[in-house]
């Protein structure tokens, strides 16, 4: 609810014109220049802020690296009405998810647990551009679940997220980039404290003329940190996807391990799929498998599905349906479920979309 009023308010403000954000969403090391996919340039609206008095986040958040980079941070800060600051007290297990808005900072104190949700609003008039800038500080031993649902509602969507994790903090992030149009999303996670841990899953769908530009940066600075990054998605039509995934094993991160793996299913010859996995390593004693690899849905998977009665097309369609099933399974609030469902209805039709909801027993739960 809060978000839709916010969007309406944003709409009501006069647009003073547009500005170009040059070469944003960049990876730490630009080693893949020949692919020409190191960044994206976006034209975004600017609203006049003359005379506004607004609330900014505590200074501490200025130090949090955000995935889309400082240019986007500056633009998003200048456009957000008020920054939204939430603090979860030490040891508190906060049940109610925190709905992150345009410019949000969340402080999760030592030993606390919180769920943070970023979600677009697919109903209502389609906007030109929407954005979220979300910064999170997870103190020692904190547990943070961050859920990101991009399900449409604007032609262009920017999500820039930064998380800093102190000792023994555990972060899990689930991203669902399912919307139409352009989605540019950057996530930077700093595992600063010893034994800090990140589990990141990212699911994406690109169809028609969609553009997906994803930047994942994990800085492993503490000792014995652990990160596991899994991306997978389906690309169809003329979709263009660039994924930059960097695991940076900084000097001093001894005993740390990081792994990244992407699986992509490509359903059309007109798809442009670029993936740039990079492991930066300035530390000898990084244990285990810190490898990056690109997988794809192979003939064994397809054959298994065909052996159980699905045609080639149905097997491929299952992967698309699965994206929405998974998003619904993870969606923690009626609002996020509605957003996923609205998008599922667009993509899969209402019969299948309703089947998702019925099948997962969500309808029953919602009615009660």
């Amino acid at each position: 609810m809060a978000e839709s009023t916010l969007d309406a308010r944003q709409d009501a403000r006069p647009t003073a014109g547009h500005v170009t954000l040059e070469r944003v969403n960049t990876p730490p090391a630009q080693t893949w220049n020949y692919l020409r996919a190191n960044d994206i340039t976006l034209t975004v609206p600017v609203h006049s802020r003359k005379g506004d008095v607004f609330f900014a986040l505590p200074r501490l958040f200025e130090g949090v690296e955000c995935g889309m980079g400082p240019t986007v941070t500056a633009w998003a800060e200048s456009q957000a009405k008020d920054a939204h600051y939430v603090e979860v007290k030490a040891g508190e297990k906060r049940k109610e998810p925190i709905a992150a808005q345009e410019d949000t900072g969340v402080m999760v104190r030592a030993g606390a647990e919180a769920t943070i949700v970023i979600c677009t609003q697919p109903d209502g008039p389609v906007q030109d551009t929407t954005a979220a800038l979300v910064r999170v500080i997870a103190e020692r031993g904190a547990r943070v679940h961050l859920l990101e649902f991009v399900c449409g509602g604007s032609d262009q969507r920017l999500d820039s997220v930064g998380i800093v994790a102190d000792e023994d903090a555990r972060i899990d992030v689930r991203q669902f980039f399912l919307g139409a149009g352009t989605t540019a999303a950057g996530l930077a996670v700093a595992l600063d404290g010893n034994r800090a841990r990140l589990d990141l899953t990212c699911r994406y769908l690109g169809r028609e003329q969609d553009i997906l530009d994803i930047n994942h940066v994990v800085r492993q600075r503490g000792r014995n940190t652990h990160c596991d990054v899994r991306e997978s998605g389906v690309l169809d039509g003329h979709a263009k996807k660039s994924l930059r995934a960097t695991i940076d094993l900084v000097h001093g991160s001894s005993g740390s391990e990081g792994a990244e793996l992407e699986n992509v299913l490509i359903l059309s010859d007109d798809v442009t799929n670029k993936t740039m996995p990079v492991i930066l390593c300035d530390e000898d004693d990084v244990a285990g498998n810190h490898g990056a690899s690109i997988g794809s849905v192979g003939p064994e998977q397809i054959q298994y599905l065909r052996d159980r009665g699905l045609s080639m097309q149905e097997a491929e369609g299952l992967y698309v349906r699965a994206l929405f099933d998974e998003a619904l399974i993870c969606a923690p609030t009626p609002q996020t479920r509605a957003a996923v469902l609205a998008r599922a209805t667009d993509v899969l039709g209402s019969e299948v979309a309703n089947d998702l909801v019925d099948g997962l027993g969500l309808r029953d739960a919602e009615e009660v």
Partner: protein
Amino acid sequence: MSNQLLRVSGLSAGTEDKPILHDVSLAVGAGETHVLMGPNGAGKSTLGHVIMGDPAYQVSSGTIEFDGKDVTEDAADKRSLAGIFLSYQAPVEVPGVPLYSYLRTITQKRPELKMTARKFRARVGEIADQLDMGSSFLTRELNVGFSGGEKKKIEMLQLLLLRPKLAILDETDSGLDVDALSVVSRGIETYRADCDGALLVITHNTRILERLKVDRTHVMVQGHLVAEGPASLIDSIDEHGFEQFEKASAVAGGERA
């Protein structure tokens, strides 16, 4: 003999550069239980996959008939819908597809099994209980990160859900601990009792057969079916191994060369 459910006649098949099966003939009647044994590398799994219609293998001669129709040229999904089910020796991991989405999709595909989502959930829950599976597995990715035993249970879950006319169980018992083995055996019994389906059981282990009434036993060596007999043939293999048949196969191979 025309009342056979599955009839494989003079089947030779292999990969592009390697013949694996040679002149294989075998027939399974509706509701019968057959056992296929043979040393590692004999071609048992290949036979299962060729009957299922895996395009990784090419049929160079012979035919496969199922339920009165020649299916030799049919795609795997068509054979599946006709009622053939192959439980994989090593079930494939399918990242990106939650088990729930998968089960729902393969069930809705079959007109005779179509049901409301609510009924479907109840049905899956019931089978999962029979197989001692808990419920959290439904939201996990298909076969990803499951133990060997769990993967075999997921195959059994599909068997009971899809109710095929013929189930080919490729070493469903291998690598299972005692508990998992008894759960899986019970699953097979339930399939026999509820669906009156036919079975072609590929196994090295006679334990899984203890609770089944075996109608026929086939022995494969080096891509040839070298012996066929009653259930008692299993005991003889248990005692003497495959050597007796390997010699026969060497002779057969020699004659061919």
